[in-house]
């Protein structure tokens, strides 16, 4: 929900320069940036994308670190801003003992998982909601002619290290929850916590990518993406018992947000899920995350292929 202002200067004019760049024949041709050159598999493309992502992020981190005081302040601001949601929950619990049948440590557990997973995705590719602006003003063309996958470039664009604030805040709440929650820990439950964070983060990443793909079509509509990313994150901070059954069904079967934290967390807490799903569903988040990533990848390709430059 938080709209962030960006300081600093655009580095658009400056392509990523690196002497270790692969020779030209191994790079995808600039005219078809989303297609690999013949003879190169998916593996090579992914590796190249990750490499471009790493280089661009490193550049943005260097640029951020040029103003250290500003970095510390914006990170703190990011932390405080994201903490507001939890402050609201604390204020609610100053007046009640349970909400939707859940006590504070249990809700903090849900909150911590959702906020940390979202924080990781936001840190990694949170600037993707700026894509609409690039489509509108035509600066996406610059990315198309660069010898690196467009998705990696857009994902790393204006990488904001200050978003560590959000991750830190989520992790702190999760830490409190793990200490305070009344759970008999089994190895399975312990293993489920990091697994949930990882797959939850990937599901949110998929949402960011799908949202960006949507912006090729609806350039001004970056706020719609916010409803699913920030809105989804807010929804998952509360237990599913709070919401209407239809809404819970919607975020389980249509937009699989429930796999970010609700399903695994309710297994850990030993609570029944309102929809009577079999118990093994709690372990499916990695599969769902993989499916989401594949689907959003397809959406991204379709979006990028439909791109028509402003021409100016």
């Amino acid at each position, binding site marked *: *929900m*938080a*709209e962030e*202002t960006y*300081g600093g200067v655009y580095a658009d004019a400056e392509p990523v320069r690196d002497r270790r760049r692969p020779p030209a024949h191994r790079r995808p041709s600039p005219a078809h940036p989303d297609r690999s050159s013949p003879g190169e598999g998916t593996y090579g493309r992914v590796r190249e994308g990750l490499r471009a992502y790493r280089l661009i992020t490193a550049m943005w981190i260097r640029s951020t670190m040029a103003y250290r005081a*500003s970095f510390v*302040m*914006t990170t703190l*601001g990011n932390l*405080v*801003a994201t903490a*507001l949601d939890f*402050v*609201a929950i604390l*204020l*609610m619990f*100053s*007046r*009640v*003992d*349970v*909400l*939707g049948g859940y006590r504070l440590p249990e809700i903090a557990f849900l909150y911590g998982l959702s906020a940390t997973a979202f924080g990781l995705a936001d840190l990694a590719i949170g600037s993707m909601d700026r894509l609409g602006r690039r489509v509108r003003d035509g600066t996406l063309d610059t990315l198309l002619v660069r010898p690196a996958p467009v998705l990696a470039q857009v994902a790393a664009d204006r990488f904001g290290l200050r978003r560590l604030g959000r991750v830190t805040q989520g992790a702190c709440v999760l830490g409190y929850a793990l200490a305070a929650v009344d759970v008999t820990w089994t190895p399975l439950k312990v293993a489920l916590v990091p697994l949930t964070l990882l797959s939850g983060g990937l599901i949110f990443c998929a949402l960011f990518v799908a949202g960006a793909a949507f912006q090729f079509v*609806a*350039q*001004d*509509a*970056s*706020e*719609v993406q*916010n*409803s*699913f990313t920030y*809105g989804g994150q*807010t*929804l998952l901070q*509360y237990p599913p*018992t*709070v*919401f*209407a059954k239809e*809404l819970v069904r919607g975020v389980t079967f249509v937009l699989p947000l429930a796999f970010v934290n609700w399903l695994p967390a309710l297994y850990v807490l030993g609570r029944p899920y309102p929809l009577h799903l079999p118990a093994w569903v709690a372990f499916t988040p990695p599969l769902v995350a993989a499916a989401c990533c594949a689907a959003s990848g397809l959406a991204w390709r379709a979006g990028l292929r439909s791109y028509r430059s402003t021409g100016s």
Partner: protein
Amino acid sequence: MGTGRLYAAVAAGGFRRYATYRTATAAGVFTNTVFGLILAYTYLALWHERPHLGGYDKGQALTYVWVGQALLMTVSVMGGGFEDELMERIRTGDIAIDLYRPADLQLWWLAGDLGRALFHLLARGVLPMAVGAFLFPLALPSRPLVWAAFLAAVTLGAVVSFAIRFLVALTAFWLMDGAGVAQIAWITAMFCSGMLLPLNVFPGVLGEIVRALPWASLIQAPADVLLGAADPVAVYARQLAWAAVLLAAGRMLQSAATRRVVVQGG
């Protein structure tokens, strides 16, 4: 051109400027509706646990959610209105041209911001509220007089919000980069305006403090007028007092700041 007509034209310009971005507005309406939906369910759970919390019944609490969503942009709780532009003008020095104009700086920006507020009230306020009324049993008043009283409180809330953000923007005269102050300002506004949670739900002394602060004029005050939870006259008196104090402070800060402006020749 008469002075009144000048500021009316500026206000109309502010309205039209935001009305240009239709897709963005539609997307914003969608976002307000989604967040309203999520908040409405959490409030339902809260009021299920504690009926009559903060003096509201369930219907009033639900109405509060949708009033908050309708006013979020109108009274610019999260900032991002004129103040970003004003700060940029101060940073680049364009402010010197503004000061040279035969129009009052504060009134000029106030008029533009009220135009924007009116657009956001109509475009971002009405539709989410209608969706909320369709999905939930809201406690909306039937008497037109109450709605008129509500609109008056919203107007005063928009003025108080402007006065705060004008002060925030003027800090750029000293700090150059106002991003930090702007961030502190919107976080404070989120917490103290009643956007996070109705201020009458805040516990003990904390509740008394936030209800006395100027930010209470933004969301809590108009909502209470609409819900019939407060006497409109007392609400207006408090809003007017804050608006007067903060606008006067803005003028004082402005005159202190403009003494710092040095226009480089060339």
